[in-house]
């Protein structure tokens, strides 16, 4: 009987386990995870869980009983320390050695740290433990400084402000999220946060930190000093690819795979945040850190393991929520093609499209879920659209779908 070993305690490996059982695989499944928790979703860590509005079981990938019911062996609080592809074997931190028929690496990423920024009042945010520790410090009246106006920085700023914490965000770029989402978004995000009392110091960098008797003193590049109680370092991530690199797998800012999620070593697959996957629609390798993609990679790999190999071509989707605002993105927003804005930037209800050769290549929307749902369908089929049409709010995106009109007229019963 074959045995599949899954490494990592995120949604990617959990989705592979779920997918394997749903597709009828009855061999052994062992899931090894460094964290002591059942596999869980990370998006709530900077949102609802940090705010204290949801509890832990609500964002587990599967309920606890599911693993026993489906004969999935969990080895939690244990790391895979070594991978020997030639022997189809991994060595665990508890000293055990496990043979595998197929190995799935879903080791994710970790928060990037900054030299000189560590200590009791300094935070990163990647794990449940990080979120709980930070939550304990978000007391009204205290001052939190966030280094980095990325998604995690912005989301934490929103939760902290909601709890009455004074928040200052340092962002080296001229606008937060601007490089990823464009200037319209960057400005909207700054304005939304400003209204809630969050201060953005854009174009500014904190260069040093010292501990004082009552908190932290931060020095900025222009020589200013800012005092605070807590510091969150939200400056990006580092893929957990060392295990794979040490085993001789091809690694380049993540574990390289083909469009089936197969690494350069036989029977070793990589999924989720750690994987740099060849994506046929991008025409090259892409690594994203999106919940939905991690789940879809996981599911897809279950099918690949069971021999139903088809390339992974799903559009990348992610969201970010801040206060009661929702940012949602689909497809490529890497600056390729022409940019078209639909809706009203002023009213903070707009979508920014990337148009390549008359096709929508990607979009990102602020509080426009209907644009997202329609675009999702349009992007899945061949279509032609002009910039003027996209920019016109009265032009229905769904009219780009084949025979939409015909289906509608038959619908009346």
């Amino acid at each position, binding site marked *: 009987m074959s045995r599949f070993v899954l490494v990592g305690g995120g949604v990617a490996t959990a*989705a592979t386990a*779920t997918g394997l059982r*749903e597709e009828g695989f009855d061999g052994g499944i062992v899931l090894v995870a460094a964290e002591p928790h059942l596999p869980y979703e990370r998006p709530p860590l900077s949102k*609802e869980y940090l705010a204290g509005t949801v509890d832990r079981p609500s964002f587990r990938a*599967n*309920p606890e009983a*599911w693993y026993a019911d489906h004969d999935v062996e969990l080895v939690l609080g244990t790391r895979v320390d070594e991978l020997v592809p030639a022997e189809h074997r991994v060595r665990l931190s508890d000293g055990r050695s496990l043979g595998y028929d197929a190995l799935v690496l879903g080791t994710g990423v970790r928060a990037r740290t900054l030299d000189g920024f560590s200590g009791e009042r300094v935070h990163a945010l990647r794990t449940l433990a990080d979120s709980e520790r930070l939550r304990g410090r978000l007391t009204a009246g205290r001052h939190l400084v966030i280094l980095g106006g990325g998604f995690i920085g912005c989301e934490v700023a929103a939760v902290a402000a909601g709890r009455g914490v004074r928040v200052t965000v340092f962002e080296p770029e001229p606008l937060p999220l601007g490089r990823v989402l464009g200037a319209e978004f960057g400005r909207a995000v700054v304005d939304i946060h400003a209204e809630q009392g969050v201060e953005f110091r854009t174009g500014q960098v904190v260069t040093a930190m010292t501990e004082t008797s009552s908190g932290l003193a931060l020095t900025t590049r222009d020589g200013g000093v800012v005092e605070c109680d807590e510091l969150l370092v939200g400056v990006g991530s580092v893929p957990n690819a060392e295990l794979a690199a040490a085993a001789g797998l091809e690694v380049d800012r993540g574990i390289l795979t083909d469009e089936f999620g197969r690494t350069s070593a036989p029977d070793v697959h990589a999924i989720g945040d750690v994987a740099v996957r060849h994506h046929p629609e991008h025409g090259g390798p892409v690594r994203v850190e999106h*919940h*939905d993609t991690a*789940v879809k990679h996981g*599911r897809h790999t279950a099918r690949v393991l069971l021999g139903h190999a088809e390339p992974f071509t799903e559009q990348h*989707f992610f*969201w970010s929520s801040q206060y009661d605002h*929702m940012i949602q993105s689909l497809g490529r927003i890497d600056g390729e093609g022409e940019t078209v804005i639909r809706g009203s930037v002023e009213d903070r209800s707009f979508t920014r499209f990337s148009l390549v050769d008359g096709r929508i290549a990607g979009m990102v929307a602020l509080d426009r*879920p*209907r644009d*997202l*749902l*329609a675009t*999702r*369908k349009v992007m899945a089929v061949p279509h032609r659209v002009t910039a003027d049409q996209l920019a016109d709010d009265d032009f229905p995106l769904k009219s780009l779908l084949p025979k939409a009109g015909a*289906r509608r007229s038959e*619908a*009346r*019963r």
Partner: protein
Amino acid sequence: MGDTATQQWHAVMAADDLWEGEMEAVDVEGTSVLLVNHDGDVFAYKNRCPHQEWPLNDGDLDEKELTCANHLWVFDVTTGKGLNPANCALIGYQCRVDDDGTILVNLG
């Protein structure tokens, strides 16, 4: 006391006003209920996504698949079961169409 079984049924709308392949949210005694017409069969669900309570009528209905507008979870409207992810389900209510074409919902 009257017949509680019939009292729990609420007339919500005319079946003719809910087209095939369409869905609509109605208020039933303060509860927002989603009505879906799939191939002439009418189904009723709580109009809140089991993930994070987003109103489902904001979502997209395509054949059997209802996609929530918030984080794109997908459900089968004929069974209420989650398709992606699979380990969740919509909250369903009893629902029928009476002889004069009125949709009735029972919050149970």
